């Protein structure tokens, strides 16, 4: 099938990408745009390693066709840190020691960023619900949850 032109903003920059209709947003981000921070793992929307923000909402990039993002706004893990340094969520993950092998962390951080955008004062239960779609096989959940709560406090 012929590639189709798709225009979108990725981490604040305009991109024009020729995408195959059967390629996912995840494939496009990693293989065509070179943003490999977003991870591929289960490829069926169960592990959350590929979480990105699409039009301001957390989605699994493995369950979105690249063409579906045409005209949209995508933020990946690479887009969270600003000129002032790490995003408060990233900083909290570092300080709390929430990272073990690290593979799930980009998805965790983006999902946590999405939660704090919607709810600046989450309870522990809110954090668990927001991260229910993100699996960590090192089982670092305690520190991940602590890091998100710490980031929320830092931002308030």
């Amino acid at each position, binding site marked *: 099938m012929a590639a189709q032109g798709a225009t979108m903003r990725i981490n604040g920059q305009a991109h024009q990408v020729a995408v195959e209709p059967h390629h996912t947003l995840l494939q496009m981000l990693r293989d065509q745009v070179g943003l490999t921070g977003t991870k591929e793992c289960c490829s069926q929307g169960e592990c959350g390693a590929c979480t990105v923000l699409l039009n301001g*909402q957390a989605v699994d990039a493995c369950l979105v066709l690249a063409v579906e993002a045409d005209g949209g706004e995508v933020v990946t893990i690479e887009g969270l840190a600003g000129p002032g340094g790490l995003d408060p969520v990233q900083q909290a993950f570092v300080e709390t020691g929430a990272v073990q092998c690290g593979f799930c962390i980009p998805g965790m951080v983006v999902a946590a960023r999405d939660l704090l955008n919607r709810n600046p004062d989450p309870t522990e239960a809110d954090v668990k619900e927001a991260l229910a779609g993100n699996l960590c096989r090192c089982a670092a959940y305690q520190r991940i949850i602590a890091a998100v709560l710490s980031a929320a406090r830092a931002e308030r």
Partner: protein
Amino acid sequence: MRPFAYARPDTVEQALDLLSEYADDARLLAGGTDVIVRLRTGHIRPAIVVDVKRITGLRADIVETDGVLRIGARAVMADISADGRVQRHFPALVESARVVGSVQIRNRATLAGNICNASPAADTAPALLVYGATLNLVGTGGRRRVPIAGFLAGPGRTTLQPHELVESIDLPLPRIAAGSAFGRVTRRWGVDLATVNLSCVVTEAGVTRFAYGAVAPTPVLVQDESGLLAGGAESDASRLLLDRFIAQTSPRSDLRGGRDYRLAMLSVMSRRVLATSIQRLHAGEV
């Protein structure tokens, strides 16, 4: 994924033209949370994927009209569970939409897609059954309305024709006071399919309805008009009636639970959601 063509029609008419042209070779795409998984596994191999998300005639919102709450075909789980009117009148739908997949899934998955996917374990289907929802379909031959009970035909099967699509889902606003609730048993919290799920409505007229999911090829709807269950007091008669309701299911044993476990959980969960529904009826919620 195997290659396919992709179309993004702007109007319902354009979408229907594509469905007529390709028939069984076309696949509709709304949220994609089921379709893209099945495209990847090769369970479906369409020549063309028709994305309905930019069709202006298909709404993504929820409107109140003619005594019904009309949920647009493009409305996603996150928006449905956050809607004040759905929360006020249809709490079992809110509670079921809130546990589908994960935040990431609920931001994409549509109610219409969940129903068209016709999984026996679809969390929102029991709620639509007890609330008496009707689907508004549009096809090349015109429009028709189909009650949810006549829409779900089997695992992965509906009575939607190849040249039709779902335009919206109507929930009749309750005319008398009612209480309702949803319950489910899963192995883990988040991103798991239900071992059993169920919804219940109790009305002030004494009618009690249950719908049981993941325990038969399609959810099982049962109803007590005698007032026996709505009274809330357990008795030999009420236990017998619940047993008779549960006997209408035919659960299988699979990796999520054995047949006997599912039957036992249906019994426990029926009592729980009935008690919550009665409590909500008396508290003045619906």
